[in-house]
Structures are given as structure tokens and as C-alpha cells.
């Protein structure tokens, strides 16, 4: 079912509006570390692309370049929207603000008025299922709920490109799979372009329309897998033989890249 193609972008992407594109992107840090080399990857609207790779292979650097936190030392970044959402590894909530205040933060920084902010926050809080917790402080929430608040915060800016830097890595398995379902539902509703970094192959296959495998330093894309399961995705596909086979194939490619 899956087609493994080396570095070249696949045909399907051409038909969709590319929102985010890396073209021969390379990244060499001032200390001489080569984090990325020759990365070609495009993400269109309605696409959810996951990047898996060994630790320290430059996966996060990819997101930092996409978001503008760093600029690539070579190649070009194509970005066809300025509505970008970024979800960090930690929830990065401000501990002195309650959920409402935290979710309003980005719109506040964008200079939107209090009334609009409140409406947007209410909508986003509802979207992630945190109604009733508006007045709770981050320390009163579980790890999963903090991550929901963090997601809600990003949604207030109506992102067209959504960048996820291993957002569920620190969560327990049950919370993680629950949040995976939530994220799939949000993806189906909001139809953004997603770029998701993760260590977990199963998570990548379950969430994505496409999984790319990255090699260790310098980070290169060494394999691309199209995930054929339709959206909205049935949670039970995780227990199907096709799913297991795909996870196996991606894991195998990851192992090859690692050695």
C-alpha cells in the first residue's frame, strides 16, 4: 500500500495547495554541527505529515525553521500563510494565568480587543473540551489537560499551518492516545496543514496522511510513506493488520536510517 520514495516530493501534493514547503533546506549551526541537509518536503492544506527519526536528528530544527525561530543556512522555505500555530513539547502555559487567560494570550499579543479575545478563547476551549476549567490555574490541571489548553491557545489564531514539536511525548500512554483522537477530530474539523514531530511510529501512522523518516545527523529525509486510511479516522484501525504492517515498515525504515 505504501510507496517508499527517496527524497523527491510525491505527486499527490502537487494537486493540493502547498502551505508549507522546504526546498533543499540545510541547517548548519555556528558551532559546525550539520543538523539538516537537503530536505525537500511540502505540506498542503488537509495534509498531516509526521516526521519520525532518532533523537537529535534535527526534527525539531525543521519546525524551528518553519516557524521562523531559526533561519535555514541554505535552501528556501516556502510559506503561503501567516497563520501559524506552534505547539511546544511542554504546554508552556503561564503559571500565573488561568486557562482563560492562557488561551487568550496569543490573541492578546496580536493586539486583538478583549471582547474578540474572550469569544475566540471560549470557542477554542470548547473545541478542546476544557469547558468548566476556565478559572483553573495550570498547576490545578493534569498534564493532558495542560496540553489541551496549549492546543486551545494555538487554535485562537486560526492556524492554517500547524506545527507540533512532540507535543504528547511527556504524557502517559492512555492520555496520549486520547489526545491523538482529539487531534484527529480537530484536524478533520479545521482542515489545517499539519507538521508533526514524534518519536512514536504508531502515533505518526495513526495521525498522518503521510509519514517521513529522517536519518541521524545530518538529518535527511530517507523515506516517505503515504498512509491510506481515510479521514475521519476510525480509532479501531490501530488494531488492524494493515496498520501493524505499516508501523512495521516505517519502523524498519527508521532502523535502517539509524544504523
Amino acid at each position, binding site marked *: 500500500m505504501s510507496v517508499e520514495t527517496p527524497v523527491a516530493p510525491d505527486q499527490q501534493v502537487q494537486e493540493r495547495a502547498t502551505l508549507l514547503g522546504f526546498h533543499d533546506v540545510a541547517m548548519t549551526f555556528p558551532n559546525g554541527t550539520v543538523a539538516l541537509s537537503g530536505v525537500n518536503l511540502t505540506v498542503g492544506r488537509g495534509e498531516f505529515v509526521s516526521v519520525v527519526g532518532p533523537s537529535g536528528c534535527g526534527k525539531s530544527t525543521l519546525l524551528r525553521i518553519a516557524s521562523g525561530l531559526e533561519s535555514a543556512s541554505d535552501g528556501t522555505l516556502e510559506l503561503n500563510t501567516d497563520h501559524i500555530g*506552534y505547539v511546544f513539547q511542554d504546554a*508552556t502555559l503561564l503559571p*500565573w494565568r488561568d486557562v482563560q487567560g492562557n488561551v487568550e494570550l496569543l490573541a492578546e*499579543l496580536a493586539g486583538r480587543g478583549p471582547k474578540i479575545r474572550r469569544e475566540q478563547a471560549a470557542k477554542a476551549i470548547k473545541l478542546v*473540551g476544557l469547558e*468548566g476549567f476556565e478559572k483553573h490555574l495550570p498547576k*490545578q490541571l493534569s498534564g493532558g*489537560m495542560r496540553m489541551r489548553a496549549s492546543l486551545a491557545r494555538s487554535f485562537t489564531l486560526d492556524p492554517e499551518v500547524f506545527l507540533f514539536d512532540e507535543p504528547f511525548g511527556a504524557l502517559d500512554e492512555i492520555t496520549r492516545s486520547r489526545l491523538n483522537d482529539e487531534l484527529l477530530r480537530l484536524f478533520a474539523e479545521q482542515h489545517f496543514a499539519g507538521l508533526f514531530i514524534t518519536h512514536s511510529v504508531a502515533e505518526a501512522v495513526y495521525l498522518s496522511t503521510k509519514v517521513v523518516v529522517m536519518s541521524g545527523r545530518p538529518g535527511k529525509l530517507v523515506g516517505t510513506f503515504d498512509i491510506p486510511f481515510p479521514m475521519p479516522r476510525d*480509532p479501531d484501525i490501530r488494531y488492524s493488520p494493515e496498520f501493524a504492517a505499516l508501523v512495521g515498515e516505517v519502523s524498519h525504515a527508521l532502523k535502517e536510517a539509524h544504523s
Partner: protein
Amino acid sequence: MATSTIEAVTAPARTVTPKAPRRSRNAIRWVGPVVVFFVMIGLWYALAAIYEAKGQGYFVPYPHQVLDALTDPDEISALSSALLHSTEVAMTGLAIAIVLGVAWAVVMSQATWLERSLFPYAVVLQCIPILALVPLIGILFGYNFQARVIVTILIALFPMVSMTLFGLQSVAKQQRELFQLQGASRVTLLRKLQFPAAMPSIFVGLRTSAGLAVVGAIVGDQFFQRGNAGLGVLIQVYASRLQGPQLYAAILTASALGVLVFVVFGWLGRLVVGRWYDFS
């Protein structure tokens, strides 16, 4: 998929852990200090008796004599006037130390080169024996209120500088990047991220500085005898006249001021950041 939403909402959000019953915990908390207090009073009586036997009772008067001095109307008026003046010096110096300290820290937090250039001088300030400077301050600024306030500032400044800087720099990298992604300006970053994050450390520094400000006010007093006399002047007068009970009463008053200031600023800290930070 909707079920996961419901599960999240029903998840309990309280972070209460079971502890021993409140009453027994309070008892444990108070019994120790109270016992120590009475032991100290007992030792004091013993010491006073020894000195009395030597015919030097004015060096260590009995606690009840000190209590008599503390409740004597003339003494009360002398002490309260001195207390008022010392408090005035301490709080003026503290207020200026807060402004200077926070400003100094904010400037240093803006760039590494600024921090490298300015932080060593904060450390130097901390290392200078301020007492060595006091006579010079007297010569330069006169021997009254102004000189006292300057001594107080010098003594109280360092904790404000270092704790504010520590607080401003305690912001996690990702939180800073979150602001950066929205193109937040330095001012916005300071106002909405760094200052709120620094508040717990600022209050820890403030509490320390407040205690030091009391020390500064009394030290300044003892060197500068002009202007309104504070507790330091009173202490020296009583010491030179060998008025034991009055001397001890004045020392206790100065100590009480120090403790009061510590408690008040601790309470203020809890009031401001206690909601989200475990300030103790």
C-alpha cells in the same frame, strides 16, 4: 471520539494530598518554638542572677525589669518616636533600593554584554564592608536623614538586584519563544512574561532587603547623630549611661521592627504570588 472530551471534563483537578489532621499539625508547629522561648527566658534569668551577684546587674537586667521599662510611659514615648524615625529611614531607603535594584536588573537582563559589564559591580557592592564607607558618606552627605538613607540603600540594594535578575532570567526558553513567535516587543516580553515570572524571586529579594534596610537605618543612626534620633541613637545613649533595662528595651524594639518587616513583606509576597506560586 466525543467520549474523550467527556472524560477530560470529569477528571478531577484538585491537587490536595491527605495530611495529618490540622489541629495536631498546628500543635507540633507551635510547641517547639514556645518551649525554646521559655528555655531562653530561663537562661536569661540565670545570666541576670549571675551578673547581679557580681554587682553588674545593669549589664544583664532581669527580663521583668526590661518589661517594666517597655511599659513605662516616658520610655514608650521615647521608643515610639525613635521607632518612627528609624522606620522612616528604613522604608525610604528600601523604596529607593527597590527602584534602583529592579532598574539595574532590567538593564542587565536586556543583553549578555550589559550583564557582563554591570553584574560585577553588584557583586563589588555586596563585598564592600559598608561600615568602612559610612564615615565618608557622613562627610559627603551630612550627618542626618539623607546620609542615613544612603547607608540603608547601600546595605539593602544587592538582594534586590540579584533576585530580580535571577527572576527575569528564570523564564523558560520555550515560553520566551512563544512570545517571540507572535513578534512581541521587549517591553511586552518584560511586562507580560518576565516580570510576572520574576515576582516570586523579587519578593524573596524584597523580604531580605527589607530586613537589611532596618539594619542600615540603625547602623546609620549610630554613626550620624544629627537630625531626628532613631533607635540606633537611643541604643547608644542608653549604653553609654549604663541604663540596662532601657537599653534592652530599645534593642528588643529594633529586633521587633526587623521581625515585623520580614513578616509583612512575606505576607505581601504570598498575597501577590501565593495563588500560583508556593511562596514560603
